[in-house]
């Protein structure tokens, strides 16, 4: 994150605030001064003073305020968005790093791989990004405008402060009420949406059984009804907004009227009423700015909810730095006398397993789906649990092992990036990359797609092709401990055997653990059978 970028954000915000205040000032003065000018010329025009009236200076000021309002508003919008975008970049990069350290990433089932959850998450991040632009800046300018005009009213027409304060109190009361009710409504909307989404997803995943049993329309309708209920709570929020907007819309006109009424009541007449008229029309112009009050409040509510949500991910992040490769020679043998297998939520399952992992002799974990092969692999890799394995005369803790492991997950994905970036091989020469692709029989397909620098996305490839690219990543990795989770899933048997054979030949000097749900005809392996 370049420092230049960060400092430019602060500068942009200062500039945006300046523009915003200037825009408000020009708007207020445009309304007030033009009304004052008309009043003055009307009074002057009745007498001979008409010819002596200095018309051009106020007229020039009016033109200045008119142009200034336009320019300042444009500047405010532009610099405000620039500042928000700059902040957005910085925040997202930080968020990426924080999420990468979150424990949820290493556990089973990455929730943000699901489209609906990811979309919700992105909405939250955007609510955070734009909160300052949508709520902070307008609120600040509004507050400044209010302060100046209240001061002016106190000087010119003190009695008008009574209705003004009353109305402000009414607004504050409405804001308070709306904040509480709105936060609850927003919370309900989110949880109903999430519930409906997961219900619909479950129904889609079981489409055939549900249709066969005649239960599809019922389940689908209930899932969609949950989503529509979410829309209903959102409707309640918008109704609250309408109430606040009504009071906000009345504010400017009421303030202006009360200023004129107070001045008249205080006995001012004729030309003495000109300054109060200026003030009254200024209040009218400020009242225009109050129109967006409810939107500011909603932006604030959403930001608070987003902050709470995203904070959930960072909770229980392990203290300490991520595992760095330990010094010293690489382990030649990993042992654990009785490794207690753990379910994803931490419970102990099954009997402890005795591990003896040596290079040159792959260990195969065999078990039906659901028997915990992936969990055991992640335990060996140090991703879950905090088991320590003995390596020679040293003990390797979980975080130390993480840096030594090439963990090849079976549900791995393709990044939206070039083929080269997807292989995660850094500065390795192209020839080595092509050799890896040939080993997994993807070289033809990649050449078709446009070579190593072609931009690829997940939906361009079938499950088997994605799996093979994943195995190519394993081929190119240089870590001493290689864990392959169901490497031949989605591949047909013959191809799977060939590719696995080549990989195991390449890894003959490393420690390899392979998990599979059907017994493979590999020789020279040590097998561990896992019972569910």
């Amino acid at each position, binding site marked *: 994150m370049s420092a230049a970028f960060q400092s430019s954000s602060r500068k942009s915000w200062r500039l945006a605030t300046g523009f915003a205040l200037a825009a408000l000032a020009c708007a207020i003065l445009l309304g007030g001064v033009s009304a004052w000018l008309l009043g003055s010329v009307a009074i002057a025009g009745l007498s001979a003073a008409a010819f002596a009236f200095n018309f051009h200076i106020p007229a020039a000021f009016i033109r200045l305020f008119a142009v200034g309002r336009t320019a300042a508003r444009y500047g405010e919008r532009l610099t405000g968005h620039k500042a928000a975008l700059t902040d957005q970049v910085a925040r997202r990069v930080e968020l990426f790093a924080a999420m990468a350290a979150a424990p949820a990433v290493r556990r089973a089932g990455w929730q943000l791989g699901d489209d609906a959850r990811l979309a919700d998450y992105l909405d939250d991040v955007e609510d955070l990004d734009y909160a300052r632009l949508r709520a902070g800046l307008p609120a600040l300018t509004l507050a400044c405008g209010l302060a100046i005009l209240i001061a002016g009213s106190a000087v010119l027409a003190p009695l008008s402060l009574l209705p003004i304060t009353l109305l402000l109190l009414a607004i504050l009361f409405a804001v308070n009420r709306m904040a509480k009710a709105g936060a609850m409504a927003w919370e309900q909307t989110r949880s109903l949406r999430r519930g409906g989404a997961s219900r619909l997803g479950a129904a889609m995943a079981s489409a055939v059984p549900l249709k066969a049993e005649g239960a599809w329309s019922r389940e689908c309708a209930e899932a969609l009804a949950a989503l529509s209920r979410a829309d209903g709570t959102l409707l309640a929020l918008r109704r609250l907004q309408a109430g606040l907007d009504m009071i906000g819309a009345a504010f400017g006109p*009421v303030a202006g009227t009360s200023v004129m009424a107070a001045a008249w009541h205080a006995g001012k007449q004729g030309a003495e009423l000109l300054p109060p008229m200026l003030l009254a029309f200024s209040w009218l112009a400020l009242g225009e700015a109050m129109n967006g009050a409810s939107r500011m409040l909603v932006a604030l509510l959403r930001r608070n909810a987003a902050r709470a949500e995203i904070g959930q991910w960072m909770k229980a992040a392990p203290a300490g730095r991520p595992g760095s490769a330990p010094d010293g020679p690489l382990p030649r043998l990993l042992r654990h006398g009785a490794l207690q297998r753990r379910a994803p939520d931490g419970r102990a399952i099954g009997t402890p397993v005795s591990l003896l992992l040596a290079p040159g002799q792959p260990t195969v974990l065999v078990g039906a789906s659901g028997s915990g092969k992936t969990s055991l692999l992640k335990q060996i890799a140090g991703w879950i649990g905090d088991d320590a394995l003995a390596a020679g005369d040293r003990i390797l803790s979980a975080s130390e092992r993480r840096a030594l492991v090439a963990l090849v997950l079976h549900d791995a994905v393709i990044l939206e990036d070039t083929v080269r970036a997807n292989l995660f091989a850094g500065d390795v020469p192209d020839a080595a990359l092509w050799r890896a692709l040939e080993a997994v029989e993807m070289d033809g397909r990649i050449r078709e797609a446009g070579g190593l620098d072609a931009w690829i996305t997940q939906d361009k490839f079938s499950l088997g092709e994605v799996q093979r690219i994943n195995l190519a990543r394993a081929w190119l990795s240089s870590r001493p401990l290689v864990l392959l989770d169901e490497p031949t899933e989605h591949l047909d048997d013959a191809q799977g055997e060939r590719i696995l054979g080549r990989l195991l030949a390449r890894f003959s000097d490393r420690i390899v653990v392979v998990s599979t749900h059907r017994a493979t005809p590999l020789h020279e392996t040590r097998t561990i059978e896992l019972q569910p």
Partner: protein
Amino acid sequence: MKIAAVPAPLPDPVASPPAAFDALSSAERLARPGLRGLVALQAVRTALRLGFAATAAMAAGRLVMDEAVDPWLIGAMIALLAVACFAGFAAERMQASAENAVSTRLRSLAGERLGEIPARQLQSLSTGALVVSMQRHPESIAALLIGHRAATVMMAAGPLLAAMVLSFVSWQAALLVVCLTPVMILFFALVGDAIRRRADAQERAFGQLAGQFADRIRTLPTILANHATATEQAKLGQRLEGYAGKTIGLLRIAFANAGIIDFFASLSIAILAVFLGLGHLKLATIPGFSHLELWQSLFILMIAPEYFAPFRRFSEQYHAKAEGLAAAGALDRLLDAEPVTTKILPVLDRLRLTLPTHGLVAIVGPSGSGKSTLLRRFAGLEPGAMPAPGTHSLAAEKIAWVSTDAYVPEGTLAGAISWNAGALDRNRLEDVARAIGLLDDALLPGGLDARLDKGGANLSGGQRLRIAVARAQLCGRTVLADEPTAKLDRGTAEAVRDVLLEISRARLVVVATHDRDLAAAADIMVDLTHGDTVEVAA
């Protein structure tokens, strides 16, 4: 018994596809009543605001010129303000209700459409995209059809009202303001063109960069597994900076749109103030701007900005239009998906089988020979002739379907087993769960009260299958099972086989399976191994 290979006429592939789901036009029909009401309320609000501006100008002008102000004028002013605010309140509430009604109704229409899609095609849809679409797109479409359309109509009606009211005092002022409009629209057209050109040129770069953050969050476990966190973070920072820079460049032009409206609104005030001032000072006699009372000048000055306000409100809605159209397009694409081309298996059409009232029927054959398709035909899920005519018990609601993707509702294990199986007492549930090995599954602690997550996230395929088998045992219906022993270890597979055999003593059980043991225990075996003949062994 062998059925001879007789070349049969090709089966009718698919019935004519249903009419396209046109989200936009269906929603338009739904939106019409609400839209009318909303536009009426907004027009009333505009009229009342203009009325307030008029009376306030009159009152202020008369006060400053030391003329008498009738109390009814003040009363009218306050009344107009109150009713105008209330009209605005009612309009906003009506907009919210109307949009909600349209989005709810559209969503249920989409749901009905989903119901018409055959099961096989449903499986091929992208679930994630569909769920996101159902969550969000109806309300975007509703916002387009109600909010945006209303703003469009008011962009015609509002300025017209303002010009009319203005012409009561000075038609020349109205003319001046109206003449500024075509100039403004010309500028809009120029700016709009510039935006379009720029956007086309940068769209590819945008597309690549816009989704980078989302993509990296989605693929975080893979990045972590490949030790690429630091490099990806640096790359993300670079790309997001580039994207932000390009976006700011585009915004310069996009905001010019709103800037034009601001400019013309301010320009009109400035010009009017000058003309009116000159008129009052009698320095220039411009027809329509001279010999006016103060209240008339104030009137003109207050109404003129109201002429431009609808344009500003319209430009604020611009993004709603783009979002709504994109949402409608996405929804149409998802729901109008091409029918999945199924392999034509004439052998299945020639199969005529009489299913017994109880017993085990096994359909065997290698992958791709059509076992699952035949099973789905039995259930009536696939187009094509019913291979077992006259068998009443295979209508929907009379079937229990067993497979690894069985539906498991959120809740307890007891609830999952008794779902769609009628009311059952706990002892029966326990017996059945124990027989199939669900009670002592180490990964489902708590026996019958084990918590099952939403969507069954913490269940494996094997566990789902066993829940479906337990359900099938309890519900008393015909059982159709698709690969009931796949993905299971030996012990569990045997338990499932035993349960299926037990069920088959009293009811009909049809299985499609690779499992030779299960097939051997069957009363009738339908062998699809040879693609052109069907062997039915009794």
